[in-house]
């Protein structure tokens, strides 16, 4: 119960309201976000937020502990243990849960068992409960994050600002971020299709934010899987999955805290209702009611974010168009309304049509600029392009590392410049004055 979860820690406004979270849970109120395109075009997002609207940044250990303590106060029994396996002796009988109890402290838990009527699996992306019920696998992204403590003046810039970097160098299908935490920043990135290249993407994210996080000390490095879609089977018998274990993480933004909490609450409510406050045994049908309710309520949110990811994270021109679109007030208002309150609000149809036209225009312009560029001569070469076979990422974004320009001024055969992705060495004599 005392592990520190590697998590972005951003919670929407509706979570604070719905779960009655106290104000001191939230370390920082982020009210501005900066989106930075591959060519460093930056757009400030957040001018449509009202005085009382914000994105809350919290520490997971603080939030989790608060919720746990509150549940205990309302009568829940809290056991500190590690779930090992479970079995069901008879088809309709109780479930026997085997776990290692850490009740007495110490490093090694004591094996214990518990007989229960229903199980809600909330043990995260690598859920063991999911394995027990053969829930199936999902595609997942690997998210990598470094927590960096930066000097005060630089931290001041991130006081209520989060940054999002998009680009092929930063991630082929996700984004790199700089999120402020209570006294440090978290710089990270993620990817689904090229997990082995995550270190390069992290380096590229650090490079892009290099000037703003200069002089920082890395205090922690963490990585975790993020599910991309729900597991094929989220409920079997009287066992249901919620949160990351079920795979309730949105695309495009990778948000999961609110959906985890809400699905947990919905599952519990379904059990309470199905068992008529503990007088009758629940059945699978009752747990499936929770699944149905969750699907119907949040399906639109998930689908819209899926479409956004498919359209705007496709290629660099699409990302440039994405950042351009975020400049418009209408887009910002729609985005924040749907993020903070978790409802897809259909806006004014005329504005929607104008938005569609603008989107198509941006995408066309971005792609036109990219296409025409293939016929341009090479420019500004006091350097050399690193062209090892693995680095040629022109058509297949899942291969190799970004193509890089290496400055050869100051190099000689004894002191070559080294490509930071492939280790190839380059030098030149041409830069020396004759």
């Amino acid at each position, binding site marked *: 119960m005392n592990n520190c979860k590697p998590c972005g820690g951003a919670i929407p406004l509706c979570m604070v309201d719905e779960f009655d979270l106290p104000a001191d849970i939230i370390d920082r109120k982020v009210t501005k976000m900066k989106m930075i395109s591959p060519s460093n075009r930056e757009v400030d997002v957040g001018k449509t937020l009202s005085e009382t609207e914000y994105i809350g940044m919290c520490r997971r250990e603080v939030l989790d502990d608060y919720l746990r303590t509150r549940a205990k106060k309302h009568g829940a029994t809290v056991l500190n243990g590690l779930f090992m396996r479970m079995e069901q002796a008879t088809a309709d009988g109780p479930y026997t849960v085997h776990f290692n109890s850490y009740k007495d402290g110490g490093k090694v838990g004591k094996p214990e068992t518990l007989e229960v009527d229903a199980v809600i699996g909330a043990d995260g992306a690598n859920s063991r409960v999911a394995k027990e019920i053969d829930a199936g696998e999902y595609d997942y992204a690997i998210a990598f994050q470094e927590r960096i403590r930066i000097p005060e003046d630089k931290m001041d810039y991130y006081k209520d600002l989060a940054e999002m970097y998009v680009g092929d160098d930063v991630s082929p299908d996700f984004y790199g971020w700089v999120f402020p935490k209570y006294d440090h920043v978290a710089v990270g990135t993620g990817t689904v299709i090229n997990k082995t290249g995550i270190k390069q993407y992290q380096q590229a994210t650090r490079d*892009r934010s290099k000037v703003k996080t200069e002089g920082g000390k890395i205090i922690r490095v963490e990585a975790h899987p993020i599910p991309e879609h729900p597991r094929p089977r989220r409920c079997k018998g009287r066992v249901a999955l919620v949160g990351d274990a079920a795979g309730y993480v949105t695309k495009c933004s990778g948000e999961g805290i609110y959906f985890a909490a809400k699905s947990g609450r919905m599952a519990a409510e379904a059990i309470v209702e199905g068992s008529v406050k503990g007088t009758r045994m629940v059945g699978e049908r009752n747990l499936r009611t929770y699944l149905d309710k969750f699907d119907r309520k949040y399906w639109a949110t998930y*689908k819209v974010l899926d479409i956004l990811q498919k359209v705007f994270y496709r290629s660099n021109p699409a990302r440039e168009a994405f950042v351009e679109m975020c400049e418009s007030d209408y887009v910002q208002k729609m985005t924040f309304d749907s993020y903070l309150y978790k409802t897809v609000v259909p806006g004014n149809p005329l504005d929607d049509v104008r938005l569609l036209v603008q989107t198509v225009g941006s995408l066309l*312009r971005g792609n036109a600029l990219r296409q025409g560029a293939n016929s*341009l001569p090479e420019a*500004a070469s006091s350097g050399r392009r690193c062209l090892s076979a693995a680095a040629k990422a022109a058509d297949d974004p899942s291969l190799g590392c970004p193509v890089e320009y290496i400055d050869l001024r100051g190099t000689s055969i004894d002191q070559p410049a080294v490509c930071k992705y492939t280790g190839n060495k380059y030098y030149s004599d041409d830069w020396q004055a004759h």
Partner: protein
Amino acid sequence: MQRAQLPQHLQRHQKRSDECRRLKQAARSRAPKRPERRGGKERGRTGGRDASAVAKNVVLGAADTSQKVLQLEDGRFVDYRWTDGRWDLSKFASAGGKMDWDAWNKVIDAEMARRKILEESPIPSTNEEPVFFDTAEIPWWAWVRRFHLPEAEKLNGRAAMVGYFLAYFVDQLTGFGLADQQNSFLGKLALHVVVFAVLIFRTSSTIPMYKNLLDEATFYDRQWAATWDGQARPSETEKP
């Protein structure tokens, strides 16, 4: 060996040939080495034969900021037309400060080159030099003229060539002229079908591409519905 003195009537020629030899030697020592004669250099990069000042700037780098073109220096993008995070349109303007087609064309070229350079070598984003340039500043007609019109010309040209020969052959085979071929409903229908099919299915790889897009569009829905395999949702079975 001492040359024998020439007879006096020939000494005139001697002087002239000496003079010539001296002049030739002087000229040879003044003249640059071979590559330089054609605008090149023995070692190092050049702008190319008859390179313009702009091309030389691009390749060799200019001495002062006022002439730098599309350079990446010290992790910053430097160009004499790029100020305050956007392209200064006045630097592209044609005579009289007008932003006409040529000027916008140059802006499009410059932005294309900038994005290409930054895609190949990303630079850090700084607070001191934020980038604001919006491609919507370039008017719609410049985009159309630069990108759409050449493509439209090519496609229309192809259509005209193929259409002409097909009409000729159909005329030869059936005796129906161009106007008669399109008079019937079937003729009009065939014409429309062919034109739209050619626009929609451009290459042979387009059909699998559309199929892939359709799969992609519905894939997420199917992943979400997987848990309901073989079971009806409560909301569908229970009457409210």
